[in-house]
């Protein structure tokens, strides 16, 4: 049932970067809002005129090639400045005091010893921080009196140097009253203890619910029935650069910030509203960000704390989380419990399917979204899917390289491996028999769908037919070989929010595709430059794309939800087409006015651009340099473009993963011998960038599969491995060799994206965990339902088999 949204609310949403951020991360939850925004923008934006659209290049020169990134030279010479590198004259350093308890309230806090330290300039606590809500459930301020998770920011000290700031933090005396903490999701739900946070406030929220046909009767009449429970662990994004902000006030109502935020325009608007200033008075610069993966959206607490301390001291202040602080207080990928149930007909056709998911939202309302792959990958008429999200006293949850899709795919793809076995079918054949190419919940075809191609090409690349064998059938001595696969459909990389961009041609013929799409490592600036240069017809060597300052670039949206290239890129394409139409128009009027100009009497439609020239389509030797056209206008030429998705469009990204492992049956050690990732990217704008995203996304999936888990101490709810020493992020040695870690790019050109592109940031992360778990099952006959698949679980499974209790 589609939600009706009032126009007033639509306008608010469009003007609210914080909402844009939410919608980007949770497109399935906010599908109706996204549709409404797109429809509104389409209704008020003039359609792109035919003659402008006609400028679309037909032969591609740069799109679809490997382009060296413009972001890199500064990064490989040490010249790139990240927020944590900014050093300003007279700058203070801040250190943060974090709660040692998962749920506790401050009875008293004494900062006098800290304030008395030579070199300490300000101490921030709940007593002197403005009482403005950042989120509502439970109430979250910049520094709270009540801590809702272990590691929450309680106080901050600004001092002349970091050593003194740290001493200041240690000198703060806090008397805590420890409160009951929510540690066990299921117990919490079962006990009905849903008001632990505050009287009358539920601590669980119901997320998406999907109902098709009649699951109960379809399941009752199914020939083959199966059900299972699947769980995943809390994971940390662990970007290499911890959260960092440097803030400087320039007078009472002008704020300049350097931050590691993934969405500089949202940070700007959040600060403007927090301090009651116009947005134009906040300037945010995000030149380089050392990774984000969803953890650095908009304004994070480092930004608020830096801005407040800078205001208190009237000096620049630098806040940089330390690594344990980042592990504890930055958002997490939430742990999830998922129950799946399915019925098949005797020939292996999926007839009934249900899923109930319970996500650990952590402290503060995060939101879950494990359903997209479950809704999308397989065809089924009778189904019921429901997600629930519980607020707990663990670290706040949030999107991590997808939101819940990797969790949902973990459950679904192990489950479908089991179903294939029950049906007596090869796992690949079983999946292909049941795969869907439809948006089943809207009953229409996907705008583009490369799912089957992903499965088939990946299977061919890894040699599935030759290598798949019965579980446990290939063990030599202590070495067992196995192969496994997974399919995936993603809610990200496909949806698109309305967006606007500008592009500028200077009088020397140089092209600037400046925008504020924060560059967090994905090569977004290079992608925007390629789209603009290809469309306008200039060489890459005279093109550029700055990306780092809200004062000089429009809001180009958030780098999250795999939506940069598709949303901002589509608007950039339209801006470039607009610029090209202006160029052709101007060039046609210049014809014959100067002996150097050889276009005599040409109409815009007779002209095209390329290589920095306008030329006659009929005779390419007749040409004018773009620099001459721009010069003739007397000012730089500016193209403007907006983008919105037509109503009734269903978009999705798709992927498949194939893993080959060797399991040591003595030690339980898993060696990932080979991994093949196949991803439907619509069209690769920069092949190099797409490969990077696939390899990096798969790497994060390998971590989720075999290594990573933030471990909570039961009674205290304290994360015991909040550092890289004990939280095992994969290293060079945990990946297959260069030649065995490969990808296949599938390109079913999508009519919505720029040059057919879809997003690629997140989808590659989901297939590896279940593909690897399925390969381990294929090797040793042990099923592991709880990620990560660690040695102890493998050895316990092998012991069960030895005792005749099954894997």
């Amino acid at each position, binding site marked *: 049932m589609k939600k009706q949204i009032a126009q007033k609310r639509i306008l608010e949403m469009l003007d609210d970067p914080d909402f844009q951020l939410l919608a980007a991360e949770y497109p399935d939850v906010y599908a109706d809002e996204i549709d409404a925004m797109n429809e509104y923008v389409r209704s008020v934006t003039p359609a792109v005129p035919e003659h402008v659209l006609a400028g679309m290049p037909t032969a591609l020169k740069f799109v679809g090639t490997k382009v060296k990134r413009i972001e890199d030279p500064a*990064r490989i010479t040490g010249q790139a400045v990240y927020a*944590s590198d900014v050093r300003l004259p007279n700058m203070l350093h801040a250190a943060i005091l974090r709660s040692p308890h998962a749920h506790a309230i401050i009875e008293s806090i004494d900062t006098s010893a800290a304030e008395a330290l030579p070199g300490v300039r300000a101490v921030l606590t709940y007593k002197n921080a403005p009482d403005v809500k950042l989120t509502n459930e439970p109430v979250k301020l910049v520094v709270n009196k009540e801590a809702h998770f272990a590691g929450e920011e309680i106080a901050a000290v600004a001092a002349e140097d970091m050593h003194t700031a740290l001493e200041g933090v240690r000198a703060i005396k806090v008397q805590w009253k420890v409160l009951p903490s929510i540690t066990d999701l299921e117990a919490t739900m079962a006990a009905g203890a849903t008001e632990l946070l505050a009287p009358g406030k539920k601590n669980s929220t119901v997320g998406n619910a999907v109902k098709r046909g009649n699951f109960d009767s379809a399941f009752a009449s199914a020939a083959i029935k199966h059900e299972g429970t699947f769980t995943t662990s809390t994971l940390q994004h662990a970007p290499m650069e911890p959260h960092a902000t440097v803030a400087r006030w320039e007078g009472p109502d002008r704020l300049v910030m350097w931050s590691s935020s993934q969405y500089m325009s949202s940070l700007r608007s959040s600060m403007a509203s927090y301090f009651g200033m116009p947005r134009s008075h906040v300037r945010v610069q995000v030149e380089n960000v050392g990774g984000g993966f969803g953890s650095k959206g908009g304004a994070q607490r480092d930004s608020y704390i830096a801005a407040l301390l800078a205001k208190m001291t009237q000096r620049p202040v630098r806040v940089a989380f330390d690594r344990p602080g980042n592990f504890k207080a930055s958002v997490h990928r939430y742990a999830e419990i998922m129950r799946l149930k399915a019925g098949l007909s005797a020939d292996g056709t999926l007839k009934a399917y249900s899923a109930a998911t319970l996500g650990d939202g952590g402290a503060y309302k995060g939101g879950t979204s494990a359903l997209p792959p479950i809704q999308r990958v397989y065809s089924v008429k009778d189904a019921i899917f429901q997600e629930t999200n519980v607020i707990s006293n663990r670290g706040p949850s949030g999107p991590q390289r997808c939101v819940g899709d990797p969790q949902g795919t973990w459950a679904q793809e192990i489950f479908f491996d089991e179903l294939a076995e029950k049906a007596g079918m090869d796992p690949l054949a079983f999946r292909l028999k049941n795969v869907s190419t439809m948006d089943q919940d809207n009953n229409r075809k996907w705008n583009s769908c490369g799912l089957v191609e992903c499965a088939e090409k990946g299977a061919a690349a890894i040699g599935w037919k030759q290598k798949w064998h019965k579980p446990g059938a290939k063990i030599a001595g202590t070495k067992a070989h196995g192969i496994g696969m997974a399919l995936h459909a993603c809610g990200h990389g496909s949806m698109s929010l309305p967006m606007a961009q500008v592009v500028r041609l200077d009088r020397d013929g140089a092209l600037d595709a400046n925008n504020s799409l924060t560059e967090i490592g994905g090569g977004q600036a290079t992608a925007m430059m390629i789209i603009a240069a290809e469309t306008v017809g200039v060489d890459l060597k005279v093109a550029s794309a700055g990306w780092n300052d809200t004062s000089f670039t429009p809001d180009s949206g958030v780098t999250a939800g795999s939506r940069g290239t598709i949303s901002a890129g589509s608007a950039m394409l339209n801006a470039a087409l607009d610029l090209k139409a202006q160029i052709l128009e101007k060039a046609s009027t210049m014809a014959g006015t100067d002996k150097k100009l050889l276009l005599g009497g040409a109409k815009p439609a007779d002209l095209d651009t390329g290589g920095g020239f306008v030329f006659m389509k009929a005779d390419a030797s007749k040409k004018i340099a773009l620099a001459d056209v721009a010069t003739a206008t007397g000012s730089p030429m500016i193209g403007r473009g907006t983008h919105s998705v037509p109503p009734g469009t269903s978009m999705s990204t798709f992927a498949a993963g194939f893993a080959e492992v060797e399991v040591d049956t003595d030690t339980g050690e898993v060696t990932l011998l080979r991994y093949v990732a196949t991803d439907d990217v619509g069209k690769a704008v920069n092949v190099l960038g797409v490969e990077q995203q696939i390899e*990096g996304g798969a790497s994060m999936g390998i971590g989720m599969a075999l290594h990573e888990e933030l471990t909570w101490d039961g009674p205290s709810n304290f994360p015991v491995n909040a550092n890289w020493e004990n939280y095992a992020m994969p290293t060079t040695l945990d990946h297959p060799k260069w030649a065995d870690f490969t990808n296949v790019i599938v390109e079913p050109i999508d009519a919505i994206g720029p040059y057919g592109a879809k997003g690629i940031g997140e989808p590659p992360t989901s297939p590896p965990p279940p593909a690897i778990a399925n390969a381990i099952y294929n090797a040793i006959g042990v099923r592991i339902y709880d990620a990560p698949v660690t040695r102890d679980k493998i050895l316990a499974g092998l012991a069960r088999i030895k005792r005749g209790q099954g894997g």
Partner: protein
Amino acid sequence: MARTKRATSRISRRTFLKGAGVTAVGAAAVAAACAPTNVAPSATTTQQQIAPRTPAGAGVGSLTKLTVNSTVIETGIDPRWSLAELLRDHLGLTGTKIGCNRSECGACTVVVDGRAILSCTMLASDAAGKSVTTVEGLATGGKLNGLQQAFWEAGAAQCGFCTPGMLMSSTALLAATPKPTEDEVRRALSGNLCRCTGYRKIVEAVLVASGQAPKA
């Protein structure tokens, strides 16, 4: 020490870090450079006395001479400073990154007298008389060196935050082993964490820089 030892086995990073990384520097460095901000005092454990004293960096410490990127530098060094702190906060060389400040991630790797060293847990004073090369010292005359060029062409950098450490570990490797095998490259870089790349293009870049194509 550090790098060769950590490169010897698959589990070396985590086990090694507890031992060698810390002993290489001494407990004092841990106290100074790695003092955690996250240790919150409990209700009854905040009675410590804090002695007032001069803020760090205000001309304390003895004059120390060392070479940084071929330039001899004489500077006052606070005994609490790590080498990374000296480079980043006092010499303006912020190309060296701090990912963890506790010898876990390798982002702060620099080359000291030919060896890859974690500068976050080496005392600055221990660099006296030594020659330090940072990422800023690789390019000459504005021209990328072969390793940097290979990183650019292979697409070995994404967010770029681990990149300086990767480059410096690779620099030390190639100086000692000009034609490393793929396994040698992977072992030499196993103490350098990267969250963006999956390491594939980094390994490729190092092999290419050594004049070898990665083996298909």
